């Protein structure tokens, strides 16, 4: 899975897809996940970083992460290649 490299994410969690003009809002955790995905981090790295920063249980994180990625897929912000 790969996030589109030209996706713009602001500090406030505003996401802009310059390929089709779509825009979305996410919370701070979502913005951090997108930034880490854009930096090419692995799931393990993202899990580690988010779990520490937001003091979240790894099992809870995994469930929420899957849900978040599914939303990104629904909005064509990630591709499977």
């Amino acid at each position, binding site marked *: 899975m790969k996030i589109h490299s*030209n996706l*713009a994410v602001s500090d406030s969690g505003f996401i*802009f897809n*310059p*390929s*089709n*003009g779509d825009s979305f809002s996410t919370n701070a955790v979502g913005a951090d996940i997108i930034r880490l995905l854009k930096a090419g981090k692995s799931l393990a790295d993202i899990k580690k970083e988010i779990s520490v920063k937001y003091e979240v249980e790894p099992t809870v994180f995994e469930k929420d992460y899957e849900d978040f990625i599914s939303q990104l897929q629904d909005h064509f912000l990630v591709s499977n290649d």
Partner: protein
Amino acid sequence: MTNSAKRKITVAVTGLNAVDSPGPGVAVIRGIRDCEDFDVRIIGLSYESLEPGIYMEGIADKVYQIPYPAAGTETLLSRIEYIHAIEKIDVIIPNFDAELHNFIKISPQLKEFGIATFLPTNEQFESRDKVNLFKFGEKHGFLIPKDKTIYDLSELPAVAKDFGYPLVVKGKYYEATVAYTLEQAQKAFHKLNAKWGLPIIVQEFISGTEVNIAALGDGEGNTISAVPMRKLFITDKGKAWAGITLEEQSLIDLAEKFISATKWRGGFEIEIMRTQDGKPYIMEVNPRFPAWIYLTVGAGQNQPASLVKLALGEKVVPYTSYEVGKLFIRYAWDLITDVSEFQKISAFGEL
């Protein structure tokens, strides 16, 4: 460059109807006025007395009414000759589909007067007509929805059976309606026939995201500018009330391919429906700048000013970049004027 070094020019522009289904004139004028290379006098050419651009501050220096396209080329030429004798026009930019044929036809005489235009040839103009678009796509390798031109209501059921529902019923020049039943298609046929005349174009419905490209070709196959935009807010007439510039090389490539294939001369707009799997279907090619053309200026590619330079025979270097994520948001504004102004344009055809 000092003010005195600027080139003094007079440019006449049509399409001052900045209404809910706007003409591009006001946006074209704003672009030309923004260009620091010109000291420009703008002559507005209007058809009706209540076109807002007639009365807007800082848009036209002087306005003249011109005859409707149906009056023919001789009447138009005679009116322009009169205006030119007073104003010494350097360039005319017509902005309506319905008037372009006449302006293309009289462009040699305008040239003799000393008035430059930068218009497509009649062949280019006809090739992208709704009636010919599918053949054009087949010839040059563009994806175009299937369509059928009909002249009689009795032809509609057979076409509908072939295309299935929904389908799109389109007027000769403007407007389109999505019909989900035969009754809706018949109603749209009558409405569009009454407004724009025959033929009516029935088109296959393509589902996807609508994206538009404003572009400028130099007439030799080169792209001077191409800026893609996605409509963010659409009026009930299908017009963009807000939009944003996109970063998508495939759209720029498509505009360049169109210009290369046609050697398009002048400004134009390609309306595209991009399907979920990314296929770009050309829905329409408008043979003039769109009403949202000022967004190209805001994004860093001043297409109206570049067209003026091309018309004046100047060499224009193609733009290579623009700002992505630039928005335009149209707004309604009540302009207050006096009845004497309205009377001048109505009674004397000048303001």
